């Protein structure tokens, strides 16, 4: 009998299935976007593929009714877990007026939705780190019981804002969890040309905060780490820096050709550890994912993605002169 790991974490079968479902939905939306891009229907995609386990595992360890998130562009899994829908995401991919992230103003992957406490993001990397710290500061000042959760890539952890933001959080022991999704590349630049230290989580020491490195292909391990980080934060024990080891299964974006800087063998190797496969295997092994459930899930997601695509494709653009709106409060 294989070891049931989720029980020990206090996760029900329904919950782990929901984690898997969210991962799968993220993957399927992402795959659809590539198809749409390659057929010339949308100009740009940037992927979550290979990072879903970490994103969804972490999100489920948060309080999705109260916590704030400041996701980065790959965090399809995070925003889905926090209430954004496939339709919302497709509206963004097609840059349509109804897109809740930006009304079609920003590229896909620039998330934001106030009602779900998803802070609005930009393109310059790492600026979201001080924002999440600011939200945590506000929560502490108002004595609210929530944490803020911010993510970024390992390359982005070299920006000054990472240092300045995390030190601020460390000094004031703020309830903020930073998760670095280390996929070993920043576009073409590999980890060892990017980062002087052996890993990213050791940087926690610079700020007097807890740090650890976790297998990002294992949603349960990430769940556990973030759950503990959240408890520490709520108990006033301060911030945490969690590094999850993942791999970017696609090129950097639809504008990139990764064959110039990484070998296919490397990607193939990583695909063997793809969490969409390995986590399904686990769930089958512990009899949570039966073939009936799996089929139903695939059908359901297929329908969701199709409907979202159709809806978004047919939805109207904002009027040209809407470009003038919302510079300042009216």
């Amino acid at each position, binding site marked *: 009998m294989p070891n049931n790991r989720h029980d020990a974490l206090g996760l029900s079968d329904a919950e782990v299935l929901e984690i898997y479902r969210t991962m799968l939905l993220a993957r399927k939306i992402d795959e659809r976007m590539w198809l749409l891009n390659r057929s010339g229907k949308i100009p740009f995609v940037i992927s979550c593929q290979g990072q879903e386990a970490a994103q969804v595992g972490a999100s489920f360890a948060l309080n999705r009714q109260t916590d*704030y998130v*400041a996701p980065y562009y790959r965090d399809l899994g995070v925003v889905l877990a926090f209430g954004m829908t496939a339709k919302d995401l497709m509206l963004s991919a097609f840059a349509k007026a109804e*897109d*809740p*992230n*930006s*009304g079609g*103003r*920003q590229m896909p992957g*620039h998330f*934001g*939705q*106030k009602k779900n406490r998803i*802070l*609005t993001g*930009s*393109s*310059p990397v790492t*600026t979201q*780190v*001080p*924002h*999440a*710290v*600011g*939200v*945590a*500061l*506000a*929560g502490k*000042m108002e004595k609210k019981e929530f944490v*803020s959760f911010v993510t970024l890539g390992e390359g982005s952890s070299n920006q*000054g*804002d990472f*240092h*300045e*933001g995390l*030190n*601020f959080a460390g*000094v004031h022991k703020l309830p903020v969890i930073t998760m670095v999704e280390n996929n070993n590349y920043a576009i073409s630049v590999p980890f060892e040309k990017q980062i002087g230290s052996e890993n990213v989580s050791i940087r926690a020491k610079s700020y007097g905060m807890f740090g650890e490195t976790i297998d990002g292909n294992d949603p349960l391990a990430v769940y556990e780490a973030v759950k503990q980080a959240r408890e520490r934060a709520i108990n006033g024990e301060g911030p945490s820096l969690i590094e999850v080891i993942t791999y970017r299964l696609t090129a950097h974006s639809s504008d990139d050709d990764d064959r110039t800087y990484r070998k296919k063998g490397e990607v193939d190797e990583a695909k063997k550890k793809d969490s969409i496969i390995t986590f399904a295997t686990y769930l089958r092994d512990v009899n949570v994912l039966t073939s009936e459930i799996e089929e139903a899930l695939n059908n359901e997601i297929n329908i969701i993605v199709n409907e979202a695509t159709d809806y978004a494709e047919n939805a109207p653009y904002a009027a040209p002169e809407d470009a003038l*709106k*919302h*510079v*300042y*409060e009216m």
Partner: protein
Amino acid sequence: MTVMSYIQAITAALREEMIRDEKVFILGEDVGVKGGVFRATDGLYEEFGEERVLDTPLAESAIAGVGIGAAMYGLRPVAEMQFADFILPAVNQIISEAAKIRYRSNNDWNVPITIRAPYGGGVHGALYHSQSLESIFANQPGLKIVMPSTPYDAKGLLKAAIRDNDPVLFFEHKRAYRLLKADIPEEDYVIPIGKADIKREGSDITIITYGLCIHFALQAAEKLAEEGIDAHILDLRTVYPLDQEAIITAAKKTGKVLLITEDNKEGSIIGEVAAIIAENCLFDLDAPIMRLAGPDVPAMPYSPPMEKYFMVNPDKVEKAMRELAEF
């Protein structure tokens, strides 16, 4: 009415807004226990406690960025940059983030932050404690830039900035801090951001400027009045976005315009003011649009003769005004 210096007016505005709205808080370097290197936040730490008057680490991008995060949440941070010159590490947070958040989120999120910074020269501050930095930000829709010239304006405009639901850069002239004193009403008042103000009515020449140069112009105007030259002086007060209507009206009024800034000339705020006039009331002009500014060197030097050479002062203003009047 109470007599207050420019910096006392700033402190009073901060204090009154903190009393009025508990969402208002202050963060910056040395703003707490020390009360600020210029003492703009004097007494506030004692009155409101550490949580609302926060001494931050020495990191301007974090001061801005953490402030932006808290503002997105719904608080009203007033961030202090110790000197305007040191706002530069925070430019990315201010331009990429604060200025664009309302727009990029299609009005879903907004950033009610005020960023205060002492600027300006003539204080033996050398290159990095004397600069005017407004033009760096004066091409960024989403931002507002306020530069008050008097204690009265400083108080009313700072209150307006704090209550504004969009980010405001608030530059205070550090030589004005203790130099200028004025009667300030006891009761609460607010001065609308975005509106220029006539500081002197006149009919012969129009001076458009802001900050400390307003006083140089007023002094020069009194002198020239004795010679029968009557100057009209417009205080921009908000240097971005500019009050086009007021500028056009003031330019048309006399047909002779002198623009003044203590910033370097090329690329400064007054270039845009000239462009607005040249675009809208060219045929109302009786003289070329004249500009008086600092020379195009990186920033003013420390040694007194060179600093004086760089700085605009009442004599230089008077000379330019006379030249324009005689055109």
